[in-house]
């Protein structure tokens, strides 16, 4: 199996599995080329967002071991485990635990521990499972190829061309010699690889911009205390948000249980919000409706509320426009309802660009659309009569013409006095297996002034009522 991605307008392999590697496929090879070799090749299109999501999830999962997790390129994760390894029974058991559990989840994972990030990364790649104590990196790195330094392509090439193909060979050159040719950055990396200097890692999740937490000397378990803590944290957070002119679209409450289990609940808002009352209520709704109640076990020793996603609140000034206020109310209503019943049960109509009347709209979750941005196609000029009925039937209803000008709908005979048409709408031919005939729509008025929207379709015309104008 291979994964392909578009590079410079050509499909190229971006990842290959072991079997494909064994068959001679390589990363960067054009797909056409690979197909020429293996017609039966199984190809999957690259999905970078999904990859990223998965890798971020892995990083999330790593939070378990240490708060200091860094993303290092698309493929590497750096964990600063200084001072935490004893929690997992020492370095070796910790490393094994991480690797084993990742493997158990079906990932191919390699790992190593060293005093510096550069060394750990190199060892993970070339010597999986190694643990090198601080100060002994040089010994471990010496025999590795120069690529292990993860330098840029030009520098690596220059070193190789000069015959310096291992870390040992590079290290044996004079420092001045290297700096003059390859720059100081390269030397820094080399130093770090050899354990001479160490740089701190830059953790992945800059802890959320805004958060408040409360430590409990004794684990708390009663609901009242938890609610109270949540409330005070929310108020504190709201103050910070207000000070910064921002509101939260997504908030997270994290409950750290004394025994290491972490529980999180998340609420989302349709518009940036910082009103503690609203937030409190939404948390409350959420807690109420949790299928799996927040089991405090032996109690929580830390509760944290974070604003995960914040946005600027635009309308700072109190809006005197009633409609605007109304919209805010509608938004809040939508948020409340959605929090309680689920996002997918609170819907709004959205227009779609299609000729077929019943396909020109769809109901979508209200929280997912910006109500102000919905725009319906104008089908007529101001003065003209409407071309589409006010009420469109979900399912066109069969009608009959008993005589010319006499139509029978819902068992009632109606006499047509005026009509206009036809408006011919052809079916979307690419959706149907067999050709469908076009519909001829008519706007029709009966003797009592009722207006209908009818169409006929087919060779032996069949008539349908599709909507009414008033």
């Amino acid at each position, binding site marked *: 199996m291979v994964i392909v991605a578009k590079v410079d307008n050509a499909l190229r392999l971006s*990842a290959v599995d072991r079997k494909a590697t064994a068959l001679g496929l390589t990363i960067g090879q054009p797909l056409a080329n690979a*197909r020429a070799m293996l017609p039966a090749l199984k190809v999957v299109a690259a999905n970078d967002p999904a990859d990223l999501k998965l890798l971020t999830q892995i990083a999330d999962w790593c939070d378990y071991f240490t708060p200091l997790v860094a993303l290092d390129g698309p493929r590497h994760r750096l964990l600063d485990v200084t001072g935490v390894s004893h929690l997992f029974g020492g370095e070796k058991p910790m490393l094994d635990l991480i690797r084993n559990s990742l493997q158990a989840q079906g990932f191919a994972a390699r790992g190593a521990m060293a005093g510096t990030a550069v060394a750990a990364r190199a060892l993970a790649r070339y010597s999986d499972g190694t643990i090198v104590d601080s100060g002994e990196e040089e010994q471990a790195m010496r025999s590795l190829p120069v690529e292990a330094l993860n330098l840029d392509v030009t520098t690596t*090439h220059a070193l190789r061309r000069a015959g310096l193909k291992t870390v040992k060979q590079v290290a044996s050159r004079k420092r001045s010699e290297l700096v*003059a040719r390859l720059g100081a950055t390269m030397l820094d990396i080399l130093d770090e690889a050899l354990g001479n200097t160490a740089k701190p890692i830059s953790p992945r999740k800059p802890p959320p911009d805004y958060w408040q937490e409360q430590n409990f000397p004794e684990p708390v378990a009663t609901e009242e205390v938890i609610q109270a803590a949540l409330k005070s944290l929310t108020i504190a957070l709201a103050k910070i948000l207000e000070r910064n002119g921002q509101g939260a679209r997504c908030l997270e409450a994290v409950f750290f249980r004394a025994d290491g289990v972490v529980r999180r609940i998340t609420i989302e808002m349709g518009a940036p919000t910082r009103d503690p009352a609203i937030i409190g209520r939404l948390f409350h709704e959420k807690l109420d409706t949790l299928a799996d109640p927040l089991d405090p076990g032996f109690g929580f020793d830390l509760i944290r509320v974070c604003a995960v996603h914040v946005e600027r609140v635009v309308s700072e000034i109190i809006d005197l426009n009633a409609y605007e206020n109304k919209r805010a109310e509608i938004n809040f209503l939508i948020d409340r309802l959605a929090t309680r019943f689920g996002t997918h049960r609170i819907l709004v109509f959205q227009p*779609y660009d299609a*000729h077929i009347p019943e396909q020109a709209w769809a109901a979508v979750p209200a929280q997912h659309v910006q109500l102000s941005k919905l725009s319906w196609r104008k089908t007529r000029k101001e003065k003209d009569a409407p071309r589409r009925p006010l009420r469109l039937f979900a399912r066109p209803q069969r009608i009959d013409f008993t005589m010319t000008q006499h139509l029978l709908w819902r068992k009632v005979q109606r006499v047509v006095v005026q009509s206009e048409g036809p408006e*011919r709408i*052809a079916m979307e031919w*690419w959706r149907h297996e067999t050709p469908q005939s076009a519909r001829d729509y008519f706007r029709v008025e009966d003797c009592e002034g009722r207006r209908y929207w009818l169409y006929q379709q087919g060779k032996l015309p069949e008539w349908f009522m599709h909507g009414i104008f008033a």
Partner: protein
Amino acid sequence: MALSAGKAARVVYARDFCMSGYAEIAVTTNYSFLRGASHPRELIETAAQLGHAAIGIADRNTLAGVVRAYAALQEIKGYRPKLLVGARLVFVDGTPNILAYPTDRTAYGNLCRLLSAGKQRAPKGECYLTLDDLLKWQEGLLLVVLPQNNEEQKESDANFWNKRMAEEEGRDITLSIFEKNAPCSVTFSRGKDDPKGRMRSLFTTLRILAPMRVWLGISMPHHGDDQRRLRAWQDIARDADVPLLATNDVLYHCAERRELHDVVTCIRKHVTLKEAGYLLEANAERHLKSCDEIMALFREAPEAIAETILFADRITFSLDQLKYNYPDEPIPKGKTAEQHLHDLAWQGAARRYGSVIPDKVHAALEKELALIIKMEIAPYFLTVHDIVSFAKSQNILCQGRGSAANSAVCYVLGITAVDPMQIDLLFERFISEERREPPDIDVDFEHERREEVIQNIYQRYGRHHAALAATVICYRPRSAIREAGKVFGLTDDVTANLSSSVWGSWGSQLKDSQVRQGRLDPANLLVARAVKAANELIGFPRHLSQHVGGFVLTQDRLDECVPVGPATMKDRFFIEWDKDDIDTLRMMKVDVLALGMLTCIRKAFDLIRAHEGKSFDLATVPREDPAVYEMLQKADAIGVFQVESRAQMNMLPRLKPAVFYDLVIEVALVRPGPIQGDMVHPYLRRRSGIEPVEYPSPAPEHGAADELFNVLSKTKGVPLFQEQAMKLAIVAAEFTPGEANGLRRAMATFRNVGTINNFKGKFVGRMVARGYKQDFAERCFKQIEGFGSYGFPESHAASFAHLVYISAWIKKYHPAAFACALLNSQPMGFYAPAEIVRDAREHDVEARHVDVNYSNWDNTLELRTDGALALRLGFRQVNGFREGWATTLATCRSNGFDTVNVVARRTKLPKRALIILAEADSFQSISMDRREILWAVRRIPDDDALPLFAAQYVEEQPDEEIAQLPVMPLSEHVLADYQMLRLSLKAHLMFFLRDLFLNEGVMSCAQINTARNGSKAKCAGIVLTRQMPGDAGVVFATLSDEEGVANVVVWPKLVETFRREIMGARLMLVEGKVQRGSEGVVHLVAERIFDRSYELQRLSEDERQTPPSLARQSHPRDVRAVPKSRDFH
């Protein structure tokens, strides 16, 4: 689309019924790119069947499709509607679309000028028109304003207009009146907000400037309110006092084409069908409708239908009236063109032959001149002569070919170099009197200097009289399926898969088998629809591009004949018609083409003159030198024009060319035509005497038994040349000249692949009826099909054969100059520089590495102490090096460089350039190790050093005490050479692996070539080329090692088994059987194939260098050593 018999019968009825009742005025063809969904031919045929009185072709700001329509009309038997030629003017200033139809030739000129003006100010392919332009050129144009269904200009166009609007903001503009006798000036409101007022003022303006020539065009699109809108427009028309004109604003010829129209709309808008929504038409109504339907639609306004007839009657212009006129020639006063040509010809003859002109030539000249005078084409020859004379005066090599080129007249005028004494001329065969078509002469020029010739033509004839022909770029199977796939929302992978299963891009239809080959189910609805749409799309024009070199020259203004627009290249202009159109209208065109080999030959001649003091030109190279033929017979032909391909090289020892005409045959033989027609083997058998030469003859009652002798005697009874096939059609299948001409056209363009089959029954049937064997007739026709666009007439073959001979002669006697010229003319030919250099070395030419102290940009020749010439590689062979750097290096060299620092200081080349030089090992004369040099070069300060440190350049850098670097192994040297130069003079990559392979019992390529026929053998080498010719499924691969090359054949059965190895291996090991042909051609017929590319890693210790991948299908010249692949995952 063929109509069934039943439908045709109904059609006749329809015509009788509404004869002359309706004319469709607003027809958009697919030359309104991605807007119309039918070919002009389909529209014309349908209009004829529906019995329309006239059909007006009006494409979007273009006349590109009208000639096709015209040609289609000529071919209709029976009722022909009147063809109205016009354009749909789409404006950038918000003016509604207006159809413009010229009434007469002068008005047509105005329309052309109008469109040309719009094109001049727009980027290539666009046309920006404003109402002002129309008012300027409206004289004689009938104008139909189309307020409905306006086609929007694209956004870029709108931007153009907005800029102009900003300049004129808010002002009403008083139009300057262009025509002298116009009665008054008109104020036209540009108010944006009042569409009705706008429309009114538009009509006022038009009515005053174009009285009685304005209509309001309306259509009934089934939008529900058609009748209401009709009444509204009736009011407006009455107020404005312009007649209403009924149209259906046609986009396709039949309702079924709506699907394709939706597809092309999506392609244009870059959306999928699912996203398209309102971008698509709501229904399928915009097709050509019968008079009955139109009458039903316009029952409320029958006057609008009647008006269409009146409208069509006003137009007297037809494309027939575009009489071609030859450009003004510098004919001396008091002489006619004929006299002048006559004089030039005899003067030239005297120059070529001296005072005694051979009888044969004398007779030929007389005959040809008489014919030329009769045909009134003397000016044409004078024009070509003029262009060629210019080239010669500039010392640019050129040679003519084409139907008329093979004449004694062309030879004595210096247009060609094929001596009529050597080869029988076939002049009158090509300029047939029946086909009153202009003769065809293509002239090849050196590819690097053709631009000078083109610029001269512009200067000489003026931009109003000279422009390039267009090439209509059409959808081919690959592009069609790619675009259609996108529209149907197929993923890139699936479409790539589908399109890659189309080998080559000339097939006409995607077959189910091809779909299956792409491992997709042809029954899958989505795939099936995409394939159906793609099949319909194939042959649709996509855009116009300039022809490579076809010049159209006229006496009158060219932009009054056809709209002329700018090409992408600055100062280039091209017309809207392609060579077929030009042919249809009998306009004249001269092909000014570029040929790489001419550049190479000229460079070789220059080198020979400079280093050996001998001067040659195309005509003075010694003829019929046996040593040259001897060399070719041994297939020693790398670099030789035309015969260097694998197939040609296989043919050479079998054909054993010994005289010039053999080369003509050699060139024509290995072509798709004769191969497909299975004519190659019969010819070879007859030539070697295995098979008797015989001429098929018709049954006695049908004609003389030797009727084919005259046609085929030169080629031993086997038709090889295009014109022989034509002659066969005329003589054996009794085609009329008209039919033969149709066949020739069908043959000439792949777009008409469908039409060529119409000729098959006629051709084979008539031959069989006249007593020929079915098998022979079918083979002849197969060959005709094969000619397709690869047609190779004898005249071309002769011209090319001449270049074959000359390049072979240079290779034989001046191998160093030949290799050097070849390398300096790259890219051209079939072989990569590595092969050219290797071949030169095999011919005892010493090759020397690039060196800062000796090399220039170009490759050069150096005199050796023993008097021979050595080839010094130039910096152009070094990847990434620039010509400017090389020049600097050469000018700063003076007495030579002795250290790297001196090079850097004196040349001030950027550090990057110095690193490339070091990587390419070009400091050898400074005699430092490559590594040391590289290490030293990297120490030189960066170019963008701060001013403070700039002084460092002046000073020597302080010496540095550093330890020795590890020694670079030879194998790494070689790899580095390959990376930088794609070749190495130090050793072949295989050299380092020889011991390894020796242990496995692998033979070298040279050993294979001397091995016993039928013996089992193993051979390994770097893959130079892989070819899979035609549909046969056989793969030919060429392996190379340090001792030579070996030819591998893989039969189709094996191809599937070893596909991965065949397509993927850079280093291939083949086990198989040696097959030795009677002529000494040796193949290794593969039985097992192994991919041993991984062995190459050994060459650079653990470094995974990508070796010089010579691995591409078909053409080795674009092979590059893949740089620094770094894959570790």
